[in-house]
């Protein structure tokens, strides 16, 4: 204990770090799952099936990437689903009102950003618990969505290009393209920027971060704005895909996003996790759903399986971290 252990050879696990091992393990599990699924149901291995899965998980990845950063900061955002629905409905309202489609999209996404700024301000400046703040904004956003859509769906008097953003026919469905772009942006952001590094510090120990001169308030607000923007974008994409503004979309989605993040190794207590993890989490859940659908599992069983998978994932994550974070 008293001597420096310099020059001691590192194990592969030590070289990768706990995040690296976590991500590699999840990737291996994903591959394994794909192999098992293919054995059970060979039709899994088809381009159209893959496209389906990717489109299904697109919201999870887009919103989940931003939620991952919120979790890393040591907070929650339970308003993501509601903000997505609100943005989708506002897109419909604007488009029906005659605003040019592209502008309508941008405005709808910006409204999501404003919601995020509100979340971030209450959490950072008033230091209110994010659980409470984002539940409140969740109700507000969902309320706006309902009001905007008259409690139902906007599908009349919409411009012809309303659904263009979400065009899913063609070689690569557009939602998948957006997913890749947003995911790439967040990957780079999380890995390479100073702000992201500071967010890790904030989640790990907010007091130490403050005393080290990190601008905690600014960073928290930025993190929540990004989450609001991503949620709104996902909501608009769904709305475009179905060419109608439905106020009920993404209900309960906040939990799906968190579950996928936790599956990917992000901890709810903050300071640890990766954006890559959300991709793994989302894909594992996506493939699992696909498998259960092909096997004809009823919804209730699917939830049961998801719950078990979640617990196993957390236990595995804990084990990996305890072995490597020494």
């Amino acid at each position, binding site marked *: 204990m008293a001597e420096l252990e310099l020059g001691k050879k590192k194990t592969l696990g030590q070289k990768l*770090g706990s995040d690296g091992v976590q991500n590699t393990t999840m990737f291996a599990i994903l591959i394994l799952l794909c192999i098992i699924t293919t054995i059970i149901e060979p039709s899994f291995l088809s381009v159209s099936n893959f496209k389906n899965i990717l489109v299904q998980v697109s919201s999870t990845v887009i919103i989940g990437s931003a939620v991952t950063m919120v979790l890393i900061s040591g907070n929650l955002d339970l308003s993501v689903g509601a903000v997505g629905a609100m943005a989708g409905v506002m897109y419909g309202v604007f488009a029906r009102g005659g605003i040019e489609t592209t502008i309508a999209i941008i405005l709808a996404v910006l409204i999501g950003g404003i919601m995020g700024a509100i979340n971030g301000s209450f959490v950072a400046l008033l230091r209110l618990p994010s659980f409470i703040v984002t539940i409140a904004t969740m109700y507000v956003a969902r309320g706006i969505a309902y009001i905007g859509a008259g409690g139902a769906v906007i599908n009349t008097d919409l411009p012809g290009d309303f659904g263009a953003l979400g065009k899913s026919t063609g070689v690569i469905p557009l939602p998948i393209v957006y997913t890749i772009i947003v995911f790439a942006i967040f990957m780079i952001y999380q890995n390479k920027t100073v702000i992201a590094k500071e967010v890790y510090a904030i989640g790990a120990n907010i007091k130490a971060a403050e005393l080290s001169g990190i601008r905690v308030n600014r960073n928290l607000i930025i993190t929540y704005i990004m989450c609001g923007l991503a949620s709104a974008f996902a909501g608009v994409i769904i709305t475009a895909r179905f060419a109608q503004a439905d106020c009920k979309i993404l209900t309960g989605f906040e939990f799906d996003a968190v579950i996928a993040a936790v599956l990917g190794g992000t901890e709810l207590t903050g300071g640890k996790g990766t954006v890559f993890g959300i991709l793994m989490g989302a894909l594992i859940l996506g493939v699992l759903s696909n498998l259960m659908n092909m096997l004809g599992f009823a919804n209730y069983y699917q939830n049961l399986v998801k719950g078990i998978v979640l617990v196993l994932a957390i236990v595995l994550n804990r084990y990996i971290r305890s072995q490597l974070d020494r």
Partner: protein
Amino acid sequence: MQENVLEIKNVSKHFAGVKALDDVSFNIKKGSCHCLVGENGAGKSTLIKIITGAHKRTAGTILYNGKEYNPSSTKDAMKTGIGCLFQELNVVEQLRVEENICLGLEETKYGIIQNNNESLKKVLDVLATLDASINPKSYVEELSVAKRQVIEIAKALALDSDIIIMDEPTAALSEEEVRRLFQVVADLKARGVTIIYISHRLDEIFEIGDYITCLRDGRHIETKPRADIHTRQELIQMMIGKVLVEDYIPNKVDYNVKAIEAIGLTNDKKLKNVSFDLHKGEILGFYGLIGAGKTEIANVLYGVDEYEGTVKINGATANIKNPTQAIAKGLALVPEERRTEGLCTMLSICDNTPMMNYKTVSSGGILNAKKMKDLADMYVKKVVVACRDSAQVIAFLSGGNQQKVVLSKCLNSNPDIILLDEPTRGVDVGAKQEIYALIRELSEQGRSVIVFSSELPEILNICDRVGLLYDGSLQEIIQNGDDVDSQHIMNIVTGGV
């Protein structure tokens, strides 16, 4: 001749290739205050954990009152008669004193807690004899650390403990509370209870120790009666195996240039009209008991607390409202609590080092991973952090090494003025000296330093001038030197005039 209450014979403890204890043998006499000293990593905690049943020894025997002692668990050890007062007290703050005492020992009938609890009565009786001012119905969170300790001691006594182990009990106590604790120790000895006392505070060891055992690198070095050790130097030499110079050497101070001018600092956090100057290259100390206002001054300078008064940095009034601004003005703070304020302990050395100034490892807001690693490695080497490598998580470093990472973090921001709040609290002797050397080096580089400390030898070792604080007031600033009068200092900081 006193009999032995505990005989430790050839005890070893191995952890996956590391010899935490290597063939340790010595005896502890009944009714004595037996001090255990040694640097962090010497094996003290491991030995204590074996005695209290938290770890199983790899080899060797322990005899307790002549009989073989093999506790199966901490509860088993407690029942056998070994009580322990840990550094982190095991109390639940939101519960009352009497509820805390009963925790784990509640008398229940079919799962419902009974009201007339015999063991509770016993403890409360003991508590009354130790400190009658503690009300059993008060909530623990309202009590000071010192009083919580007394509660723990009462618990141990009520269980008829033969041996009470105290691990760094005075770290968070004021002078008066330390005196009270020593009285309790004397009281316990009179009852025939043996105390195993672990501390880095050599003065205390000299005062209450009857025997001193020194461990180093997991091995037993020596056990001596206290009476056979004549000087601090002897004790330190036992502990680290080399001689230290504990004399004060004046630093290169430029008394013409004032790095900080503080005028009339007052706030509702205790400070009353504090005024002082910090000169360039100076190491200024602030000494006082707990609650005297040391951290409060640091917080004012660093922008953590509001205040009335003026602070001038290099001649210009600085309106520092938060740490970000303080750092921009050239200040850096090593906070009092390194684990909760100084570091992100779940992150690595590499992640923590650049936290005060990412500019050295990034450009345009984009991080350079290689620069981050090189920076951390550079500091690990420079301040000598004992670690596996810079990717190691902070939580697994010893206190002294963690503190060095905090220092690295500050140095990385290239500060003109460094504030150090209790820089060597909970740090072992060897690392302490290394940190003092680093502090002196800061002054040599022309930076100005303020050290806030409750350890007088530390202050007198490195500071050029010392501000004496009492109850939020700066009573006096004395010049350090050969003619320093420790009695006078103690008098001032305890409220005398």
